[in-house]
């Protein structure tokens, strides 16, 4: 019991440090948010949107914006530590590696979550989508959070790995995109089922949850091997 409490306190300490850092600099949030909005705007031009095609294109546009914006944020997971060379000190503290991973994951999830919560209404306005009913909105938010968790769990693991190289911005998408394909498929399909209800679809939301659990547990266990001693 005490162990669990200490574990949670450790996670909170690292997470709070990252949140305070971000609140002061505001680099990541602003960058990711603007990027996501710009992708949505670009999508308006690349696809000639008609009322009858918008429901088919919108989920894809939303998720492309989210995934690219997430990768921007994920790339900065340990950027502050690298720039200030404080990663060694973080590793020297008597903290379980799993706590470091979970704290970094929660931090990423928070950044992505905030950006998505801001981008979602803008998305609905730009694409003229009816998402304002209570249940639709709640389901959509749930899908968005679960999708973000799936991307962030793999992304946090690999961003630490890619951060050890010179070409981290280049390498991260190459490593992460193939791995998150199942999450992307289920998130996009779940979103389009919410927007346009259809029969005979697999339970995408449960599948998304299952993928999250698999990725989260595998990454938590493997994180200790990617962070250098």
């Amino acid at each position: 019991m005490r162990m669990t409490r200490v574990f949670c306190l450790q996670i909170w300490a690292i997470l709070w440090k990252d949140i305070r850092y971000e609140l002061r600099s505001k680099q990541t949030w602003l960058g990711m948010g603007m990027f996501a909005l710009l992708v949505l705007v670009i999508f308006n031009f690349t696809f000639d949107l008609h009322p009858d095609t918008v429901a088919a294109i919108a989920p894809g546009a939303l998720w492309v914006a989210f995934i690219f914006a997430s990768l921007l944020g994920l790339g900065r997971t340990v950027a502050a530590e690298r720039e200030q060379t404080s990663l060694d000190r973080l590793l020297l503290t008597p903290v379980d590696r799993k706590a470091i991973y979970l704290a970094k994951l929660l931090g990423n999830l928070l950044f992505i979550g905030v950006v998505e919560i801001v981008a979602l209404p803008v998305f609905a306005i730009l694409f003229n989508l009816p998402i304002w009913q209570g249940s639709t909105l709640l389901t959509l938010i749930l899908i968005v959070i679960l999708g973000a968790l799936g991307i962030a769990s793999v992304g946090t693991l690999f961003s630490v790995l890619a951060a050890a190289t010179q070409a981290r911005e280049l390498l991260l998408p190459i490593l992460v995109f193939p791995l998150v394909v199942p999450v992307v498929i289920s998130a996009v399909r779940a979103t389009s089922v919410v927007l346009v209800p259809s029969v005979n679809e697999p339970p995408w939301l449960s599948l998304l949850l299952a993928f999250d659990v698999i990725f989260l547990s595998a990454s938590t266990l493997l994180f200790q091997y990617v962070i250098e001693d």
Partner: protein
Amino acid sequence: MALAKQISQTTDGHVVGGQRLARRRWPLVSVILGVLTALTMSLSIWLIFVYTPIDALQGETQRILYFHVPTAWAGMLSFVIMAGLGIIYLFKPDERLDWLARASAEVGVVFLTITLILGATWGKPIWGAWWVWDARLTATLILWFMYVGYLMLRSYMGRTVESARGGAVIGIIGAIDVPIIYLSVNWWRGQHPVTQIGTQGALPPQAVLTIMVALVAFTLLYAFMMVQAYQLQRLQTLAQRLRIQVE
């Protein structure tokens, strides 16, 4: 000159960084595998182009299958081997395991590239399209991307322990992921037919024999290339160590 002298002194069966340098130019295992590969490969080429009857529907195009299936098998086998070696490496760090895993990735990506190209060449006349977003094809393509990501990471990180561990982690996550990708693409595509390739029962016995021999031949070729790639990995690491020693 002085540098060359020093290296030639060290290379003569000495120990560099805990690893002995090979004295034999042609290790026995390499010779045996090479001869076996050459024999079975010649046999299988004869079987493919002379022995098997021409397919009634697909004609000559069907012969691509005898190359496509074995290369796909070798490409996927090498990913399984890479992931397995990764798991062992995390428990018991030994650089030889890592050399083997990296060699497996290098050979695997070549086989998988050939598989994808052959598949597209077969698909154009038979399906009418170079590419179809079917579960098998998609999973294979994603697997190819994982190989490329793995090799890129390894070459960026250099020959360090972290690099080996990172490679092992990619191998393990990838091995978990590929079946999931296969399943999710399958669900995504819903009612689409999954297996357009002729089922085993439909093939005549000559074709089954040919494909079996081809599988053996390509597995031997894979093993032969693995040995070569492993030697190359080993020598590159040792050369790097020697260079550091000299400097």
